[in-house]
């Protein structure tokens, strides 16, 4: 059965690579090919989820890279495949003819393949490789419309930020090898020698936080929004961003093995959920709002990993994937038809395209964590586990739930606001069937996943994931979280509905609107210093070179370098000094050659006398 896994991983890679190599020539066939592949992936995903194959190949001395499907990855694979299918089908409409469809779909497929490898990887090599490829392809996808300078830059920011996090994985790999995990298997991390284990876990945590845009890396996600909406849908829902949370859930045993990792992760997660939730609530632009909400929702997954609620984390991962894809695709559909971005045009869009509007509403409500929808069901085990750890954690998490309900309400309220244009409802371009189908499907999933709430299902899920299903959330917890979300949803919904009607703007602190100024902090704290340092060094370097080049001083430049390994500036000075000295000596060496014999005589005799004297006396 290994063949199916190979196919699962290779198919999108090969087809995507082929499309990329073919370039514009393949634009015509790109979309159908991508659709076919995505469909095939869903089927294959189902197969491997059933058969659980595993493959390995030798890659490096003493290291075999491998991929395997266990319960967790089975779920993840299916999720990814389904989301991919939905996104591809939606993008058929969004990336219209005339655009570089081959490039787009090619990148999309390669990206998906990388994600699939990430979720199935059994060792750090495969994981890191796929991880980085995912980053690079996301760069290419975000910068898909490269002509606009801003977009390319945003893509760059996204890539560099995530890569800064990826450094952690290199570290982890090194620590794992040093710690004695011979094959660098992820499973072996928990059993490392203590010191090395901490290093490895730390590296992984950093990488995961970076990828899933948790604090303090969150800002790159707002940049990622400049890409086409399907890209955002893919990035935010089941891949890239979710990958971080997924990885943490995967290595949860290792986190648990260290005393500090669990709490740290949990707190980062919950704080992100709260803070970025607030940020999301503060956004005016729907896409930005959804982006920030992604951080906060994935924050719950991270929290789950921290507190060891594997089942809940997985459920949250899946549920959020479905919901977020749904929301983004809906927005994408509107943007295609309305041909513009910005909350102003989206106001009331739902009333003009009611089908999309309904699905969007479903997604919004689910996002708010309203019972009995998916996310509500997923969150409760996490909250329960959190409570088991500490009450404070639980309270903060509950607050985060409330906030998410608030921004969900805001989003729904905005799109359903009366824009006074219902008159020409249902006119203009129609939303294509390609987009309606996935919306419907995803909405259904978002509702259906609520079944996780039933302990039976949850227990089955625990067996599926091969973990102990911890304390089922007590009834009162379920009620509390449900009530909180419903209440907040209602209040916020009412407030915003009125605000929208009154065209009033709910003022919020700029800090929230600006994503907590995280980017500016990064700019000031990291980027500028580095650039300044670089310029400084470059200047020094140039000066050294100039100093080295001039005439014979180059001779001495070489010698002086050999002579002393001191810093460049000292080097520079010494070079100039010695260079001058040698020039001076060289001129001096010509002085004796006066052409006057009597001076030759005098010099020769003097030197000889000196020699005799010295040798006679100093013997």
């Amino acid at each position: 059965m290994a063949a199916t896994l190979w196919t699962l991983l290779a198919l999108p890679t090969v087809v995507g690579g082929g499309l990329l190599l073919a370039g514009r020539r393949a634009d015509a066939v790109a979309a159908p090919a991508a659709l076919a592949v995505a469909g095939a992936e869903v089927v294959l995903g189902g197969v491997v989820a059933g058969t659980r194959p595993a493959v390995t190949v030798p890659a490096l001395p003493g290291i075999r890279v491998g991929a395997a499907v266990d319960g967790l990855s089975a779920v993840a694979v299916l999720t990814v495949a389904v989301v991919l299918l939905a996104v591809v089908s939606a993008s058929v409409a969004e990336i219209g003819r005339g655009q570089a469809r081959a490039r787009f779909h090619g990148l999309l497929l390669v990206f998906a393949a990388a994600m699939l490898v990430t979720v199935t990887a059994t060792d750090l090599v495969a994981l890191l490789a796929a991880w980085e490829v995912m980053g690079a392809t996301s760069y290419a996808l975000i910068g898909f419309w490269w002509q606009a300078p801003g977009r390319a830059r945003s893509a760059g920011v996204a890539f560099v930020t995530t890569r800064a996090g990826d450094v952690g994985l290199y570290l982890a790999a090194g620590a794992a090898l040093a710690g004695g995990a011979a094959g660098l298997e992820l499973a072996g991390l928990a059993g490392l020698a203590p010191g090395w284990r901490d290093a490895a876990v730390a590296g992984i945590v950093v990488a995961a936080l970076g990828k899933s845009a948790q604090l303090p890396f969150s800002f790159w996600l707002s940049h990622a929004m400049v890409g086409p909406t399907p890209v955002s849908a893919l990035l935010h829902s089941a891949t890239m961003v979710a990958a971080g949370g997924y990885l943490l859930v995967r290595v949860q045993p290792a986190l648990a093995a260290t005393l500090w990792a669990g709490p740290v992760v949990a707190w980062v997660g919950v704080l992100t959920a709260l803070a970025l939730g607030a940020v999301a609530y503060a956004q005016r632009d729907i896409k930005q709002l959804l982006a920030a909400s992604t951080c906060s929702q994935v924050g719950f997954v991270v929290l789950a990993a921290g507190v060891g609620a594997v089942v809940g984390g997985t459920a949250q991962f899946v549920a959020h994937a479905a919901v977020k894809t749904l929301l983004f695709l809906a927005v994408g559909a509107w943007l295609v038809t309305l041909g513009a971005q910005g909350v102003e045009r989206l106001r009331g869009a739902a009333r003009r395209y009611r089908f999309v509007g309904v699905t969007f509403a479903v997604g919004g409500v689910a996002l708010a964590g309203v019972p009995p929808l998916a996310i509500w069901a997923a969150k409760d085990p996490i909250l329960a586990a959190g409570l088991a750890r500490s009450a404070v954690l639980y309270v903060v998490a509950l607050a985060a739930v409330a906030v998410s309900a608030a921004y969900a309400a805001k989003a729904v309220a905005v799109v359903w606001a009366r824009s006074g244009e219902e008159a020409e409802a249902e006119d203009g371009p129609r939303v294509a069937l390609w987009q309606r189908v996935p919306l419907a499907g995803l909405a259904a999933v978002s509702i259906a996943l609520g079944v996780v709430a039933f302990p039976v299902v949850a227990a089955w899920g625990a067996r599926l994931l091969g973990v102990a299903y911890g304390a089922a959330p007590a009834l009162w917890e379920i009620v509390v979280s449900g009530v909180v979300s419903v209440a907040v949803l209602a209040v916020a919904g009412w407030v915003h509905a009125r605000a929208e009607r009154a065209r009033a703007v709910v003022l919020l602190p700029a800090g929230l609107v600006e994503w907590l100024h995280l980017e500016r902090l990064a700019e000031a704290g990291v980027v500028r210093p580095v650039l300044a340092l670089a310029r400084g060094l470059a200047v020094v370097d140039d000066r050294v070179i100039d100093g080295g080049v001039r005439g014979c001083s180059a001779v001495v430049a070489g010698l002086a370098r050999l002579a002393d390994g001191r810093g460049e500036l000292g080097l520079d000075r010494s070079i100039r000094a010695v260079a001058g000295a040698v020039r001076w000596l060289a001129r001096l060496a010509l002085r004796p050659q006066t052409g006057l014999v009597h001076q030759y005589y005098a010099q020769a005799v003097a030197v000889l006398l000196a020699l005799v004297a010295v040798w006679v006396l100093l013997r």
Partner: protein
Amino acid sequence: MTALSVAVFFPLAVAVLLLMLRRPRARAVMWAWVGATALDLVLVAALWVGYVFGDAAGDGFGYEASSRWIPSVGVGYHIGVDGISLPLLTMTAVLFLACAIYSVHAVPRRRAREYAVLFLFLQSVSLGLFVSLDLILFFVFFDLSIVGMYAVIAGWGHGQAGRSALQFFLYTFTGSLALLLGFIVLYLGSQPRTFDMVELARQQPLAGTGLAGGLALLAVGVGLAVKTPTVPVHTWLPPAHTDAPAAGSAILAGVLLKMGAYGFVRIAMPLLPGAWRDYAWVIVVVGVVSVLYGALVALAQPGFKRMVAYTSVNHMGYIVLGLGAVGVAGSDAADAEAATLAVTGSVVQMVSHGLLTGALFLLSGVLYERGGTYAMGAYGGVAGLTPRFAAVTAVAALGALGLPGLSGFIAEFQIFTGSFGAVPVAVALALPGIVITAALFLRALRRIFLGDRALPAGARMVDLSRPEMASIVPLLALSVLIGVVPIVLVEIVVPAAQAVVAAVTT
């Protein structure tokens, strides 16, 4: 005359032949050059096959040939290949072929013959260096490579070619003399006196003599460091690259720099293991500094070619770091495995850097040829005009910044992973290098190819010609091959790497 010798000296023979011709036509010369390099590549490939599948790989060295040259001073013509030199040998042959193809149209006809002859000469010299198992033989090729490259830069460069060439010559020549001093010390330390590397590795001269060994390592190390180059003896590199012709830069970065790094693996480590262990921390520090310094200075460069030149300092720094870590590593099995990983990574990095940077320099040559300047600020949105050029450059850049799927990642991953156990702090310090590299390469791509269109005055941006594609794409293809199935390369490197590690750690 063994097959190896033939592979080494065949280009030289062709060069002499070309010199003999009376006023040959430029095109004929060029195609003769391409043919010769292609044939030589076939030879080397055959050697590879024979080495991997034949029993050539007996006790380390394949195709070993040893004959007396100047026995009076213990100098012999001793050549052979092992898992470390064979990949470099192949990379050299590939790169020279690429340069030949690239130059078919890129060289002024009047001096086509001299150009071809010079490159064929350089090819023989480079191949010879990678196979020589005698210190003096090594030195001969080492020095001749300097002379040849000086001629290339001074004769066909642009800008202040003469000056840069002189600086290059003086720096590397000084280094080579330091190298010679070190060799002499080794020679005098041996008993019976010899320059033969294998014999010296067996004898372990200067073992235990702390100072002498240290001084020998200092001399050898400095000589190799200048050529590698590492901070602070790197400053010859940027001007030399900037003013050299594209093919010259490709060879300089792709092949000549490897001579230094290769020297560390082939000479410094096995012949002076004790000293290497004693001063490993110095080497590690130099490596880390080179990594960060190279990356940072590259980040600040406005010119594309100069930027690539500085990234070479950064990339070679990884090698030095990895090799230095071996000296720190402990001697038990796990550490040995890690050290092996580091050495393997370093060798892979040599090959990978040869392919990728070679490609990048050829591409920078294309840029200069089209736009007349290297200044990235002068360009913008070029991707619209030259999609192929943009795509190829993007792939090369991504490879250079260590993207998985290309060879660079394999190399750097092994170096980091293998060294971390020995020198965690150093590795942690060096890791930001890959982030900076990523940033600067993406920025370069953005400036030149993306965004609003802008072109320097008088630029005529036409897409890559067929020869250009034929010369550059194979390099990247090889890099991808290594990146996707590294085992094909790694499996032949590992045994040699283990030998080196064993020599150093025990």
